[in-house]
């Protein structure tokens, strides 16, 4: 390439040089990158603290040049609450899977959102428990096969998938809540915008912010990375509509 070329896309500063342990094609990596870019662009990575979940992304701290706490399974919002309350000058975020946030951590996320804790949650919904080998999550799609729903999720017995963004946006406390996806570049660009806005609102000390990101788990879905992106579009998006669910700037209803 000639010398007047400039770099338009590169690894964000906030990311470390380590390669990840994620499976090939797992979109956790894309979401990591967007978080790092947001911290970079807002210039806050030096005063940020992430809270890692238990789930495939438990080792997220290995991939960031940012301080991190490792939370017990599901409790990241409680840790983030504790940290942010004593250090309101810092930028705090949790990064949580769907098992972590929507199953065991339900109480903690609802209450953190309801108290209006001023941290940011990146909620990676891949409709399954990735780390433990593909068990059913509260977000698993109807009829989706998992190791604990070998005949497919039976909604008569275990109910329908929980839509966290919809649920949390019923709370009256102001918040920013959006659902995005990363299965195509266009979706990914929108996702990045939402994530950045979530952090931006925290920088402005406005409100609790959460971005739910539809993500893939090729390994436990048992299909290729490409097929996984297709499945997000064909099966997940219709049930989990993308969009803005709550915004502090929006007129209250």
């Amino acid at each position, binding site marked *: 390439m000639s010398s007047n*070329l400039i770099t*338009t896309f590169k690894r964000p500063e906030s990311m470390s040089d380590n390669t990840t342990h994620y499976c090939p*094609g797992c979109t*956790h*990596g894309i979401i990591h*990158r967007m978080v790092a870019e947001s911290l970079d662009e807002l210039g806050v990575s030096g005063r940020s603290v992430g809270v890692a979940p238990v789930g495939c992304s438990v080792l997220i701290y290995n991939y960031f040049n940012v301080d991190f706490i490792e939370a017990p399974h599901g409790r990241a919002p409680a840790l983030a609450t504790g940290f942010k309350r004593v250090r309101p000058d810092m930028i705090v975020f949790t990064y949580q899977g769907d098992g972590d946030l929507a199953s065991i951590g339900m109480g903690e996320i609802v209450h953190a959102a309801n108290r209006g804790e001023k941290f940011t949650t990146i909620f990676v919904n891949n409709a399954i428990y990735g780390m433990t080998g593909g068990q059913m999550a509260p977000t698993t799609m109807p009829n989706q096969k998992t190791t604990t729903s070998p005949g497919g999720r039976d909604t008569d017995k275990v109910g329908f998938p929980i839509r966290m963004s919809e649920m949390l946006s019923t709370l009256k406390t102001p918040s920013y809540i959006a659902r995005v996806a990363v299965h*195509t*570049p266009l979706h990914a660009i929108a996702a990045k*915008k939402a994530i950045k806005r979530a952090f931006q609102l925290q920088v402005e000390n406005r409100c609790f912010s959460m971005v739910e990101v539809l993500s893939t788990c090729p390994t436990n879905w048992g299909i290729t990375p490409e097929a996984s*992106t297709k499945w997000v579009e064909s099966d997940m998006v219709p049930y989990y509509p993308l969009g803005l669910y709550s915004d502090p700037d929006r007129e209250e209803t």
Partner: protein
Amino acid sequence: MPGVKIDINYCKGCELCVQVCPTHILEMSKEINLKGYFYARLNEPTHCIGCQLCAIMCPDVAIKVQSHGTRFVLFE
């Protein structure tokens, strides 16, 4: 001429970049990298339009994109 640089040791061969490249110039190598993956590589460098789609989709942030002049932002 815009172009991409793929750090083959980050690449896990997921092929997501290959799928999204609008000019179909990415392909998988026949060799494996240190980790044992067939990695992505640029087939016809001259056709790259620097659109970044491959980089945006790469879960392993293995791709760096370079372009002429001011930063070319496609989607913002």
